[in-house]
């Protein structure tokens, strides 16, 4: 063994010498030569960062490692997920309920992490549903969606779920203004009179529970993106908005008429004061609140019916508009909390606003009139502009060393610039058409300025072709030096919009390995095979089933009749990490189950034909996984086959002694 190892070493050393003498050429080799080792994480080694990436139109959130780009998990959030039974098991269906009923597929755009003192604390990850407006909370110990809250008076929940520095609030601003209130059946052309925008402030309780603290009623425009203030600007929120033209058709042209749209500055501490003083108006609404219970392994869906609305056109000192050129998209505050970067997506400059100057302008009442009853601050708020940065600036992140990194969709590049003196320092191309970008902690007071990841909309010739539909991609750049350096690109699920990264050390030690069977409070749990049974309640059959490597108990069931609804409540008795079991029964119209160790999960099955149906474990569990199976017999309605169930009894023996308990 030793001598062969030595041989190999010599060979490899020779290869290394050969390799070093050939320098890679051309831009496409940039990642192959010299910098690839920066993204290399050896087999069995951990990545330095978790990277939570929005799945866009997939409705899910994916988790990668940085710098390797390895995909670890897709967390089902707003869409059903056959891989994990999300939205298929009886227990998870309530999570996707809304005031409109069950919504199986939505569009997740942005990621936020819980923060303490302006730093990522690792407790929760949040995501927004754009289409049917909702915000979800993911538990970072289980990498599962723990809670989803719907937003009333909202449409197109795009400027969400951005968070304050002590996780006081998440915000949810409307992309689409819509008619709100009792009469919503109005002509579309009456946008200017009848359409309103809202911004919801969602409070987060100690244990994570979300609640709508209040909503701000705002003029009809499109709210786009947002960031909370930090440090000195804590207590404020900043939103980009476009369509100040208030167009209701052909927005591509009609919402691009004015030279300037707005950044909306919101003094939420002031809003809190008004709320406390009872200035809010309680409104009857309907919205869903869904929560997962770790002990019953079941979600609970409820409809809430009231929300409190504050009107900043009346309560004058909550909101201020700041003119910002050309349909601003990104609206990002730097780690010091002093600078707010607006990115007009049709502009050729990046305006940077100063929080101090905004405060002074407000104190001096330097307004240029009002828009929709809200004062417009004049030019006095501007810190300065980055000149000729590129075309189509979208989003900005920060490295904690005074530098900003802005993505440019049209010119397909990342541009690094200095926040204070506004000078461009470096630029790198992305492949192609970058949307969001993300630096670990790059939206907080404490960034880890080691990498910036570009999330690209178009990949075209970057990967092997896969027909008309191509993957989107992420590209990692090392930013530890003066120059940005591409080190890796990797394909992503869905369409990544925003993403966030945090040091793995913040959460990896807290990861749940199993659910303790002793703590399982599922109403249909079977704690041990002794408790496995089949119970008839009218036409409902409850199968209390257990699974362990590698059999089900019971695995022979008879006495089911046509017209019965069968509920397989499968408890995974394993108490070891990484040993899920699956469950599938032939012909079930509702897919399969995947059950974690110690968990109970339920599959509903309504057989439509008589016969004997096999069921089996779908997750390879042991050398005898192929033996993990059973049969269930379905007889005609009115048949007198008795209800029996058994495990391990052969033929006549089983028939003689029906194991009814």
């Amino acid at each position: 063994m030793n001598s062969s190892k030595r041989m190999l070493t010599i060979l490899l050393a020779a290869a290394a010498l050969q390799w070093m003498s050939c320098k890679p050429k051309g831009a496409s080799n940039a990642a192959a030569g010299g910098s690839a080792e920066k993204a290399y994480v050896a087999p069995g080694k951990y990545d330095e960062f978790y990277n939570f990436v929005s799945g866009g139109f997939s409705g899910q959130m994916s988790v990668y490692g940085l710098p390797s780009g390895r995909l670890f998990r897709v967390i089902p959030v707003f869409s059903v997920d056959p891989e994990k039974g999300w939205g298929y098991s009886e227990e998870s269906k309530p999570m996707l309920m809304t005031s409109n009923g069950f919504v199986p597929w939505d569009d997740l755009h942005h990621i936020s992490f819980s923060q303490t003192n302006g730093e990522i604390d690792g407790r929760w990850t949040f995501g927004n549903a754009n289409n049917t407006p909702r915000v979800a909370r993911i538990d970072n110990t289980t990498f599962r969606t723990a809670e989803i809250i719907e937003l009333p008076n909202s449409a197109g929940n795009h400027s969400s779920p951005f968070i304050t520095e002590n996780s006081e609030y998440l915000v949810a601003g409307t992309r689409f203004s819509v008619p709100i209130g009792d009469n919503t059946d109005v002509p579309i052309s009456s946008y200017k009179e009848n359409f309103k925008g809202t911004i919801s402030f969602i409070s987060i309780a100690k244990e994570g529970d979300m609640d709508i603290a209040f909503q701000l009623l705002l003029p009809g425009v499109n709210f786009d993106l947002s960031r909370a203030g930090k440090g000195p600007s804590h207590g404020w929120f900043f939103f980009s908005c476009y369509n100040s033209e208030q167009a209701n058709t052909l927005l591509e042209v009609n919402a691009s008429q004015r030279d300037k749209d707005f950044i909306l500055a919101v003094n939420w501490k002031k809003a809190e004061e008004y709320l406390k003083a009872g200035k809010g108006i309680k409104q009857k609404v309907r919205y869903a609140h869904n929560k997962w219970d770790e002990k019953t392994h079941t979600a609970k869906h409820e409809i809430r019916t009231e929300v409190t609305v504050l009107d900043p056109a009346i309560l004058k000192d909550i909101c201020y508009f700041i003119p910002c050129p050309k349909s601003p998209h990104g609206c990002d505050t730097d780690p010091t909390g002093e600078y707010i970067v607006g990115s007009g997506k049709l502009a050729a400059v990046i305006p940077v606003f100063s929080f101090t100057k905004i405060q002074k302008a407000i104190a001096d009442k330097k307004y240029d009139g009002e828009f929709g009853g809200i004062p417009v601050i004049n030019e006095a708020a501007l810190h300065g502009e980055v000149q000729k940065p590129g075309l189509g600036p979208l989003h900005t992140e920060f490295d904690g060393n005074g530098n900003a990194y802005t993505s440019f969709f049209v010119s397909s590049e990342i541009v690094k610039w200095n926040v204070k003196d506004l000078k461009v320092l470096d630029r790198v191309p992305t492949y192609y058409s970058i949307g969001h970008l993300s630096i670990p902690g790059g939206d907080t007071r404490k960034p880890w300025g080691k990498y910036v990841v570009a999330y690209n909309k178009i990949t075209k010739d970057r990967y092997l072709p896969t027909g008309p539909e191509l993957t989107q991609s992420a590209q990692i750049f090392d930013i530890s030096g003066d120059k940005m350096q591409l080190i890796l690109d990797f394909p992503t699920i869905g369409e990544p919009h925003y993403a966030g990264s945090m040091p793995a050390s913040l959460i990896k030690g807290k990861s749940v390995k199993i659910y303790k069977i002793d703590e399982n409070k599922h109403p249909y749990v079977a704690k041990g095979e002794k408790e496995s049974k089949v119970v008839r309640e009218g036409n409902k059959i409850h199968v209390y089933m257990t699974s362990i490597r590698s059999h089900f108990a019971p695995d022979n069931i008879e006495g089911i009749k046509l017209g019965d609804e069968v509920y397989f409540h499968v408890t995974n008795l394993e108490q070891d990490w990484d040993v899920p079991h699956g469950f599938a029964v032939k012909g079930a119209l509702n897919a399969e189950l995947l059950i974690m160790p110690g968990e109970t999960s339920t599959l509903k099955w309504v057989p439509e034909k008589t016969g004997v149906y096999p069921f089996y474990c779908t997750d390879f569990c042991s050398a005898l996984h192929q033996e993990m199976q059973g049969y269930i017999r379905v007889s005609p309605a009115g048949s007198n086959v008795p209800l029996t169930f058994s495990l391990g009894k052969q033929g006549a023996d089983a028939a003689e002694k029906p194991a009814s308990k």
Partner: protein
Amino acid sequence: MKKMLIVFSFLAFVYACGNQSSSNASTGSETTSPATTENGNPSYDPERGAGKFTNVEVKPELDKAMAEAGLKVYDVKCGSCHKLTDEKLVGPGWKGVTTRHKPEWIMNFVTNVDEMLDKDPKAMAQLEICLVRMPNQNLTDDDARHVYEFMRKNDGVK
């Protein structure tokens, strides 16, 4: 030529990162048959097995309360695969198990399954018969002791 370059660069890549992983591999193989254990004891004791239990005090008579608690653990975490007779189900039947193994071995095995299955000769021999790795059922130290007492009861200790 281009293909060669790719092959070479791949090999070089493997080499560059190979040092660490190969040293890991060799440490791994060293620990499988150490001459002495970490606390300086002589070589591996196959009667005791690998794990935290070095000396379990067992009274001649049965501790009924412990055996009762052990039965509860058995029902939830063990009974799916182990019968109380000598019949093999997924794992071996428990009849006589306390006469075949020392308490330390049993308690180490049920709490430290993976290491035992990887290096203990008796555990490895049993795996060759059963071919299903026993799940680590996350028994607490007390659970393990209680289960052992229940095994004694099953073996006729009064």
